[in-house]
């Protein structure tokens, strides 16, 4: 019934050879798979090593005193109080300056800007700014904020510097979030008579809130760890006091003197302890490093988790 066809010259003639060759090739596959896994693991395990190393080195300092003491000449009794308060204040300035500006810029570029050389120019600018080394922002701040504007080596200078630094992150993530909202949603809103700003503020921004938030969190976590630009503005000094409190019991209740106060932040404090020759201070540095890592990883982790969940939930 099924007449046989005569064997063809190609594979069948030397099937054993072909099989041996395939086996060899597949061995290459497996070898590479192992090398690849190892390469990835180097990256991942390094972080783990780094973290474990920091925690182990810094272990003796993990107590409440470390958080509630000022820096001191004696490593054992030195603490992070002025550093974490400083970080908090600097970051609030960063948040207040970068978020409205970055989100506004993102909205403008996606919703308003005509597609011409001007929007191209802004776009190229944003991409390039994201690649500018952070220390260059420090030089900008040193020249502009510290001396030309006379803001000094203060919290407001540091906050604005970091604000400019994370601006591209906020702009880019705002744009991406807005871009993922389909035109149909906008048309639906326009069709019931909404103005452009109503469409943008009540619909576009509203629905892309999660994406924007993700970008803001990533930006802020970057700002927490940034050291170079803040050193460059000349903030590396011994700070054993707190800035004046932003709130007070008597009218006018709020005061803004703290903006112009000297300060230190967590990574600067870590760097300053790290550059001491006395290894006792290295313990403090390690503990500070562990704290910085935990904070940034928590923030980044939240952002990535948010983004991942949004991708899963929303199907336009």
């Amino acid at each position, binding site marked *: 019934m099924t007449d046989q066809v005569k064997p063809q010259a190609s594979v*069948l003639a030397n099937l054993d050879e072909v099989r041996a060759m*395939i086996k060899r090739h597949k061995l290459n596959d497996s070898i590479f798979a192992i090398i690849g896994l190892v390469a990835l693991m180097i990256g991942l395990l390094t972080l783990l090593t780094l973290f474990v190393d920091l925690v182990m080195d810094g272990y003796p300092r993990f107590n409440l005193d470390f958080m509630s003491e000022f820096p001191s000449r004696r490593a054992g009794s030195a603490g992070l109080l002025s550093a974490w308060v400083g970080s908090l204040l600097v970051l609030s300035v960063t948040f207040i300056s970068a978020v409205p500006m970055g989100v506004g810029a993102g909205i403008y570029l996606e919703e308003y800007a005509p597609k011409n050389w001007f929007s191209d120019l802004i776009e190229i600018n944003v991409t390039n700014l994201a690649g500018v080394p952070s220390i260059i922002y420090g030089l900008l701040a040193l020249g502009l904020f510290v001396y030309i504007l006379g803001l000094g080596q203060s919290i407001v200078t540091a906050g604005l510097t970091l604000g400019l630094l994370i601006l591209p992150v906020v702009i880019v993530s705002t744009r991406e979030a807005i871009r993922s909202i389909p035109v149909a949603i906008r048309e639906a809103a326009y069709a019931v008579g909404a103005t452009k700003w109503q469409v943008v503020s009540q619909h576009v921004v509203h629905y892309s809130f999660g994406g924007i938030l993700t970008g803001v969190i990533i930006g802020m976590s970057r700002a927490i760890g940034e050291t170079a630009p803040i050193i460059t503005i000349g903030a590396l000094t011994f700070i054993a006091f707190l800035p004046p409190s932003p709130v007070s019991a008597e009218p006018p209740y709020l005061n803004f003197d703290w903006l112009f106060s000297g300060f230190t932040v967590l990574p600067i404090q870590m760097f300053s302890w790290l550059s001491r020759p006395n290894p006792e201070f290295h313990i403090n540095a390690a503990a500070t490093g562990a704290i910085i890592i935990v904070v940034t990883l928590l923030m980044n982790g939240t952002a990535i988790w948010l983004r991942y969940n949004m991708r899963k939930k929303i199907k336009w």
Partner: protein
Amino acid sequence: MVTVTTPIKAESRNLNFFYNGGNHALKGITMPLYDKKITALIGPSGCGKSTYLRCFNRMHDLYPGNRYEGQIVMHPDNTNVLADGVDAIEVRMRISMVFQKPNPFPKSIYENVAYGLRVRGETNKRVLDDKVEEALKGAALWNEVKDRQQDLAFNLSGGQQQRLCIARALATDPEIMLFDEPTSALDPIATANIEELMSELRNKLTILVVTHNMQQAARISDYTAYMYLGDLIEYGDTDKIFTNPSRKETEDYITGKFG
């Protein structure tokens, strides 16, 4: 019956296929591929014809969770290409494939055609040159590209790219060639060229072609199978299928009442 005198190159026996997630895409397909003949698969979108074709070179292995049941047996050695012990790579070395959209590699024309040979470990320049020339001639592309074999394949027109992909598939002397709607992305002139080429290739090897275009099936194939929702509705001589189908469903599809 004419078929008795024609040897069978391969056949599927009670072939079932399940996509990842359980979608039962092929339901017990039993069908022969006659040696050095063109068999066409027709049917409406989603009928399983491409799924069936891609079983032959185990393309479904590339995506996790897909599952075959039944057999596809190749002759003369009676190898069940779906068997666990048979390596998909070995199968693909015997059965080559041309895709719906031309998919040349980002390499020169020469390297595209030589790819299969290089994958098989061939390094001898003379052998490669000869084989590339032979394949390009076989795919009726030699005259157009012989002076620019080092050009990037992307610079060719769509029809030329598809012929290049045929040359790539030819270069390794396959026993069977699978064509998955090879002309659906091409203009009518390029389509005519490819159809002519397939008719010529029939002298060398066995062809299984999926086509959306019934006229194309009628023009080029020796045998035609009509599939619908994963079932093989009717299989037979192309002439018979198109002039006197035995099943009502086939007739409805052929005459355009459906699909």
